[in-house]
């Protein structure tokens, strides 16, 4: 253990790193997220090759000047495929979380605002969905709906929805006891108005933080599903699917597995760091005190 106890008599206080978006980790988060977003938006312009174009002279070739990250077993340029893969990853990430957030927040508002039987019923169903590990539930739903991009989005969205419902409900319960809601009720405001004007703005912060984190989680699950062959189907360039084909040639062409996994790691790390920085920013108390 380093530094557990260092006390020299006349102290020069140690410099402290800042927290939040301006900290080193916050900056790293922003760099990663901007990089990935940029690649996803502009990959049509910056990708060196067509992701599905085969080069019959270069199968499973290592990184070179022509193919910076090498080629896969069909002679396709790995860098271009990974660049286009960012679109799939972000579509799944934002799509699934958007779906989960919409359903979850609606259910949570309904449960928290109504209380009583409806609340109980919603929350027990939410508990039940939450009881399935998200990978298993997504696997089951994928099996039921069949593979494909839209089914992946729905499957992951359903698996993530309970988290938003729970968070929203607990926030609503704490907010609705506060004075400004009581005051609005006393003024004769109707439920929808109270929810939209008074409750929603208050729960937005935590919901956005959760959504950021879950984008990363959704991308991870998509990678697992596609790796298992249950997700996005070839030839669509999805990181999980690229990783799967790379795994088949692990000894011959380890760079395929290495770079495609790295792409997933960088993206998910970016949003995870972003969530951490956002939370620090919104609630400085949650970090170090003094």
């Amino acid at each position, binding site marked *: 253990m380093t530094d557990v106890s260092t006390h020299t008599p006349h102290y020069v206080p140690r410099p402290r790193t800042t927290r939040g978006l301006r900290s080193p980790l916050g900056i790293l988060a922003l760099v990663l997220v901007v990089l990935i977003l940029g690649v996803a938006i502009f990959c049509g312009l910056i990708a060196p090759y067509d992701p599905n174009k085969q080069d019959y002279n270069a199968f499973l070739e290592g990184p070179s000047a022509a193919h910076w990250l090498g080629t896969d077993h069909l002679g396709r340029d790995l860098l271009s495929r990974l660049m286009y893969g960012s679109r799939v990853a972000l579509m799944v990430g934002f799509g699934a979380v958007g779906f989960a957030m919409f359903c979850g927040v609606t259910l949570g508002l309904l449960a928290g605002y109504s209380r009583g039987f409806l609340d109980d019923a919603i929350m027990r169903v939410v508990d039940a969905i939450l009881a399935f590990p998200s990978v298993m539930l997504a696997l089951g739903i994928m099996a*039921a709906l069949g593979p494909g991009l839209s089914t992946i989005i729905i499957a992951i969205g359903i698996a993530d929805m309970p988290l938003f419902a729970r968070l929203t409900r607990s926030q609503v319960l704490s907010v609705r006891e506060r004075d400004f809601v009581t005051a609005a009720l006393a003024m004769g405001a109707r439920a929808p108005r109270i929810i939209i004007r008074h409750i929603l703005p208050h729960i937005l912060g935590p919901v956005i933080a959760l959504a950021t984190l879950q984008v990363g989680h959704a991308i991870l699950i998509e990678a697992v599903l596609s790796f298992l062959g249950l997700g996005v189907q070839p030839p669509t360039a999805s990181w999980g699917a690229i990783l799967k084909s790379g795994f088949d040639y692990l000894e011959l062409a380890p760079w395929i597995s290495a770079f495609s*996994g790295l792409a997933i790691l960088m993206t998910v790390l970016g949003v995870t760091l972003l969530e951490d920085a956002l939370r620090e920013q919104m609630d400085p108390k949650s970090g170090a005190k003094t």
Partner: protein
Amino acid sequence: MRNFYVRRVLTALVVLFIVSVISFFIAFVLPGDTATAMLGEEGGLDPERYAYLREQLGLNKPLVVRYFEWVGGVLTGDFGVSLRTNEPIGPALLRRLGPTMQLAMMAMVFAVCVAIPVGVVAAVNSRTWVDTAGTLLALTGIAIPAFWLGIMLMLFFAVWLKWLPPSGYVPIWENPLESIRLMIMPAIALASGLMGVIIRQVRAAMLDVLTEDFITAARSKGITERQVILRHGLRNSLLPVVTIIGLQMGHVMAGAAALEVVFSIPGLGRLAVDSIFFRDFTMIQAIMLLFAFIVLLSSFVTDMVYARLDPRIRYD
């Protein structure tokens, strides 16, 4: 306290009921029909065999009746028969549970052993580069795809360095050493996410605890700083960690699925993946139910353990 237990059990039963409904009906959203799946392409052409099979499988009865028959069976330990192998599902699940449990347990041990020291050191050195490094390690653990980490470990330690066998499974009672050697890489890979979660939890809890009066009071007694941090700081920070571990148990086991595929471990997750490919609906139902049951049971047990561990809860 009694009331708390009773209420807890009742809610768990309601949730378990909904879970069983979801598990059962998810198989009926599946495209295709069980009997068609069993007969395969050519069998579907023979209407007589098709009708016979439907009768055999009870597919002609209303869904609700079949649900209750299924639940009745499950309650007596009869999960039905696998459509793929025709063997009873119960024993098959039991056989597959072992490897997954072993993997999950080893992963938990790795995760806890790394995460607790890292979390403590990060909190004690809060807002220095040590803390930043700890946070980066935690978030990397959460962000890294476990199956990819497994593949990379396999590449380095099995393919290139040849220190460890690349893949396979030996039951621990047959050859404990080899069994553990085979599981080291997948367990480390599986541990990464849990490690990240625990580091964050320990760090946050320690930061809170270290500002408490009793920490200053403990220092004033003249015990060493190490004792202050471990005996008072860590002990008070560990309760939430117990909760995390309990709540994550089922998820860690499910997260093993891709790793079981990568490392050829005959576990539950791989069985689930195989069953989906073979449209083995009865098996999928049972596996989903089993996983949900494991999650519910471990969170239930966690609540009970928590109440035991925290002296404040026992008498309140």
